[in-house]
């Protein structure tokens, strides 16, 4: 018995993929750019609706499990969506809708529009698939889907040297990372004989496994070593994907080189997948395993410290930037560092803070990149000093950039204040008081960088007449995100609860396992 919401969940990612690969076929028939704009916006609207409905269903009814093609785990691939992945999925879906609508103005009649949307929809499919999947190998596939789309999108302006260089660097680092993740999968399969997340979690805690499975662990010592190595390797990979300190170098090159809507998707959403995977691996899958408890602790602690280092280094780099998009890209490194530190705490407060901050950062950063993109396109330059007086020509984009910057600094009543407060509370309650100083100092350095932006946009006089104006749909996309960043703050007393439960669901290992077991038993129509 499969009901409509499960169908919807199961359909979302394959439908996005199919829609993406339909575009190259469509190019054989028509080259009309307008068609692709409407087509991609429709698909993105469907994805936004479906992800939000999925989140609503998961909030009301608990973790949702879907067997692909009716194949049961551990043989088949399952989607297991708890509140954490559903919330991130909903954020991804809605922000991607804004990004897609905005792309219509940004790209116009550019010749490569069809290929752009192929990769953009592929990126969305990959991100949603990575967030929803309950299978570590499927995660690998979806990471590849999302990363390969991202490499292509970074190289979209293929006639500029900068984009090609950035895409090359990015793809070299990214491909190495995904390959190493494959290596980690070998260790996982060798140790546990399964690739299903719930199954692994069950085996590491009880060494029993799902009702269906024939693997019996022979040598506990070797399994612990294998799991430990797998965890270390995958942590490295996910740190690359989420750009935490020693593995973040590709980001400040790659994100600014991409077209601005893509930068918004990469900086606001792409890095979330890495953070999500870190949380999932450290807490849900390997969290309760006595054999590698010490490894998890050591890795968590190093992640905590590196997150702090990341924030300080990135905020220092921010103050000297003269390229608006590069400045914002460094800010992404800073915020992912803070979120990674919060995830590393492993406390309910830490996960609540991380979830809240991921959400406010995703909306704020997407807004900042979209606004910056509008300013860059309108003023015709990425240099901060050439953007002077931009508020006269692009008022909505300037207001958006201002509000996003204020939210990222943490000024109340924008969303960023409340998520930063949650971060403070999490670090203080976990006894990591030094992180309070780290957040404050890095925010102050970021303030300097954002004030450069605000200064040039609002307070300087325009030098030249701007050739272009922002159209209504693009403005609407930015206004929607502005409303989002205000709502995330002003409605704090109402929405707070959702972030608490979403964060807690990562730490609820038993709930994650039992949801899979329950789905399996009900699938076979009876108790097992």
């Amino acid at each position, binding site marked *: 018995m499969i009901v409509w919401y499960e169908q919807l969940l199961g359909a979302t990612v394959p439908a996005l993929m199919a829609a993406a690969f339909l575009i190259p076929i469509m190019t054989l028939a028509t080259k009309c750019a307008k068609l692709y704009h409407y087509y991609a916006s429709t698909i993105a609207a469907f994805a936004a609706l479906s992800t939000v409905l999925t989140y609503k269903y998961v909030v009301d009814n608990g973790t949702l499990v879907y067997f692909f093609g009716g194949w049961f785990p551990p043989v088949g691939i399952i989607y297991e969506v708890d509140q954490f992945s559903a919330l991130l999925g909903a954020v991804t879906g809605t922000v991607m809708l804004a990004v897609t609508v905005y792309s219509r103005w940004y790209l116009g009649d550019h010749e490569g529009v069809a290929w752009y949307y192929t990769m953009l929809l592929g990126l969305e499919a990959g991100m949603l698939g990575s967030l929803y999947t309950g299978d570590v190998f499927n995660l690998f596939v979806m990471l590849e889907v999302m990363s390969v789309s991202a490499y292509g999108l970074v190289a979209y302006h293929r006639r500029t040297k900068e984009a090609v260089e950035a895409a090359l660097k990015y793809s070299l680092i990214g491909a190495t990372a995904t390959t190493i993740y494959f290596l980690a999968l070998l260790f996982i399969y060798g140790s546990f004989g399964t690739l299903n997340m719930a199954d692994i979690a069950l085996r590491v805690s009880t060494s029993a496994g799902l009702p269906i499975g024939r693997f019996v662990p022979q040598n506990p010592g070797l399994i612990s070593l294998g799991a430990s190595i797998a965890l270390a390797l995958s942590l490295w990979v996910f740190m690359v994907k989420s750009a935490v300190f020693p593995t973040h170098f590709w980001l400040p090159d790659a994100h600014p080189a991409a077209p601005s809507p893509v930068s918004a998707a990469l900086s606001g959403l792409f890095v979330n997948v890495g953070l999500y995977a870190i949380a999932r691996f450290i807490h849900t899958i390997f969290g309760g395993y006595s054999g590698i408890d010490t490894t998890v602790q050591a890795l968590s602690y190093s992640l905590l410290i590196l997150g702090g280092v990341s924030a300080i280094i990135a905020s220092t780099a921010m103050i000297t930037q003269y390229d608006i998009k590069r400045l914002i890209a460094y800010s992404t490194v800073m915020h992912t560092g803070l979120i990674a530190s919060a995830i590393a705490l492993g406390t309910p407060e830490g996960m609540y803070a991380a979830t809240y901050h991921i959400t406010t950062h995703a909306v704020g950063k997407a807004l900042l990149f979209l606004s910056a993109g509008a300013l860059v396109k309108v003023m015709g330059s990425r240099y901060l000093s050439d953007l002077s007086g931009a508020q006269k020509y692009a008022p909505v984009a300037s207001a958006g950039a201002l509000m996003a910057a204020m939210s990222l*600094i*943490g*000024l*109340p009543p924008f969303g960023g*204040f409340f998520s*930063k*407060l949650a971060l*403070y*509370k999490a670090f*203080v*309650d976990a*006894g990591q*008081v*030094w992180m*309070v*100083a780290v957040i*404050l*100092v890095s*925010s*102050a*350095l970021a*303030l*300097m960088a954002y*004030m450069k932006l*605000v*200064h040039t946009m*609002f*307070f300087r*006089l325009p030098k030249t007449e701007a050739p272009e104006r922002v159209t209504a749909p693009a403005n609407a996309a930015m206004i929607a995100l502005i409303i989002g960043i205000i709502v995330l703050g002003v409605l704090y007393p109402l929405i707070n609860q959702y972030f608490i439960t979403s964060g807690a669901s990562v730490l609820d290992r038993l709930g994650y396992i039992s949801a899979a077991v329950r789905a399996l038993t009900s699938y076979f129509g009876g108790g097992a």
Partner: protein
Amino acid sequence: MNWVELLLYLFAVAVFPGFVFLSLLGTFTEWIERKVAARAQNRMGPTYVGPMGLLQPIADILKLLWAKELVISRGFSWRVTLFLVSTGVMALSASTLLMPISPIRLSTPLDSLVLVYVLFYSTLGFLAIGFSSPSPFGVVGSSRMLSIVCVVEPAAAISIYAISAALTGMGTASVSEAMTAQVGLQQSPALVLGGVSLFLVMMAKSLLKPFDIPEAETEVAGGVVADVGGPLLGMFRILHDMEAAFLALLLTLLVLRGPYPFSYADPLGWVLIGVKFVLVVLAATTLSASLGRLRIEQGVALLGKHSLLASIAALGAAALNYYVVA
């Protein structure tokens, strides 16, 4: 929150200890500063309005507020700047509700950090006024102010948090409760270090002498307001005075322990608060009158060493006391 509480809240924000009280206290602070600076230079200082010229700053500000607005034809919208400065004033007014002198006290865990973020509105007003003026002096003033703010804001935040945490516990860290908490000997290192840091923060934020770097090279007034006049300048003066008074009051109540050894219920305690407040302002202004201005990088470095590092040391002392000793 019923409507009686709402009215009381509005009264507290608008009158006591909010806008009216704090702005009067601010003009009094400015009077002390001007008097001390004048005496140090063998001048009289304000004498004309009120006894000993006590009402002179009020007269100055009222004159400015009722003056004609001077609008420079191609500058940034002065209405928006006025709004930003007013927001800073009201943020300061609202923040006084954390103090025990307020008829209603709002107190929550971690309100020390909330206070710092709300106070940032006043900094924003300071910065906006210089950046928005078309004069290069105003922009230079604000950019120097910004460099100082980047060191002073975290220093203020960390020291307020550290003191609150030392007195009320790491997880609570309520500045409101810290003002009435008992102090033991083991909390004093955090209190002293945080106090030193906060004192420097107060001097830097009130643009007192070694840190009045935004004024360098403009030599007119106030650096950031080199080319600002009329009501906007009046509002800026109110904001500047209120911020100085607020920080001095915070130092008095948080670091110098307010009415100690009396209590808030005792009239003598209130007298003592007044005495301590005047002493704090006198100390800052005397220091200011006897020092010369620093260069920008010297000033930022000095603040970094003696304010930011002191605040981090205070945080360390508080953490040591909380996790190791207690």
